[in-house]
């Protein structure tokens, strides 16, 4: 047991990434506020990045850094467009709870 605490290996980083990803999934599934769901998606993207960089160091391959950089840029684009949609929705309906956005249902 003390080995698990005092000897940090690649497995620890991977487990941390898995836990963060799981928290993100739980946030997207459980919360109703579109803003919180966006933040949870950002968390999931970050967890994926941690996994990428862990394997990158494990195999000594630098190209995962390029890919992680691209993931960060995609996350930034996603956040800006997602927040713009949130603002537009709020302007029209005065709330951003996804359960109440049912105009397209019928």
């Amino acid at each position, binding site marked *: 047991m003390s080995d698990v*605490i*005092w*000897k940090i290996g*690649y*497995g*620890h*980083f991977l*487990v*941390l990434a898995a*836990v*963060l990803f*799981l*928290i*993100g*999934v739980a*946030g997207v*599934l*459980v*919360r*109703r*506020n579109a*803003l*919180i769901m*966006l*933040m*949870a998606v*950002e*968390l999931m993207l*970050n967890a994926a*990045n*941690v996994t990428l960089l862990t394997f*990158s*160091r*494990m*195999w*000594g391959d*630098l*190209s995962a*850094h*390029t*890919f992680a*950089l*691209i993931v*960060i840029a*995609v996350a930034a*684009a*996603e*956040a*800006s*467009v997602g927040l*713009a*949609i*949130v603002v*537009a929705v709020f*302007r*029209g*309906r005065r*709330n951003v*709870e996804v*359960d109440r956005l049912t105009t397209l249902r019928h």
Partner: protein
Amino acid sequence: MIRIHVVLAAAVAAALVILLGAPGAYADEPRERVCQPSVEAAVRAALPTATQVRCPVNASEYQIVNGHSELRKDAGMTAEVVLSDGRIATLELAIDDAVRANAARPTGTDQARPTVRSISYAHDDLSGSSGKVMALLFWAFAVISVVGALFVISRRNLIAAVMGMVGSFLGIAAIYMMLYAQFLAVIQMLVYAGAIMVLFVFVVMILNRPEDEPVAPSGRAGQVIGGLAILYLVGRLIIMLTHVEPANPEIAMNAPRPPPAQCIEWQKSDSGALTCTQSETPDWGSIKAVGADLFGPGLFPFEAISILLLLAVVGAIAIARPLREDADGGAGADAHPGGGAV
């Protein structure tokens, strides 16, 4: 409305120009090539336990001449070898004129073999485990990032959730640093803890209302099913993590270590043996190293990202701008039925 179409058309035109111009020097180069028989023979002579020999194209073999990349005359060659015990060895081979002349000779005849300059093993630098200070730091930052993430999905106050997200991202940036990704750690702090945080805080200020009920009240049955699903997910994760058997346990249990020193200058003694006179530790994960990869093999995704960001900017403006010229951002849906309800 006509102006946004002009902007969109300009964006698409710029995207096409960049896309057509981007591939440039690197697009038609193969990343992998077939090993020449003489190279493979030399590698197998040096490492008898080799199972698989690959000859990846190394970016440093090329130089840019008049806008086109050409093979360097003085370049060596690298070969990657998977050994039967699971290690991966990287060999540097010196290519001299005798080896180059092989191409002119028919196959099957006696061919000159390149000389092996150095052999480095991919996982030799990873032996041993981390110290106690690193363990403490890892746990501290792991706890920060996980607690911040839990804050995001549990707080009713939106500002508290954003601050939890920032704390989580700072913890993740420190985790990047532990994985020797210094450049990405800094980028993470600038982009996430800086730009995206500001964006979220502004939107929270525009919305300015706490949630009535943060968790969907879909009845007792829905809550039970949701709870069971989350328990199942966590349980499967724990089972998977305890049962997984890495292909090479020694590597998987090792701690991230800085890369080993590489020889950059060789000296040939009278007997023909090569000795290393100068070595340096490669700057792994620094701006220079990441930039060399980004503007080499990663050039196309890099250019594609610039188009994506341009489109995101235009799209965000197109979506979020007020629908009427005189609207101040507070117009209701009934004021303009065409576009208010998104």
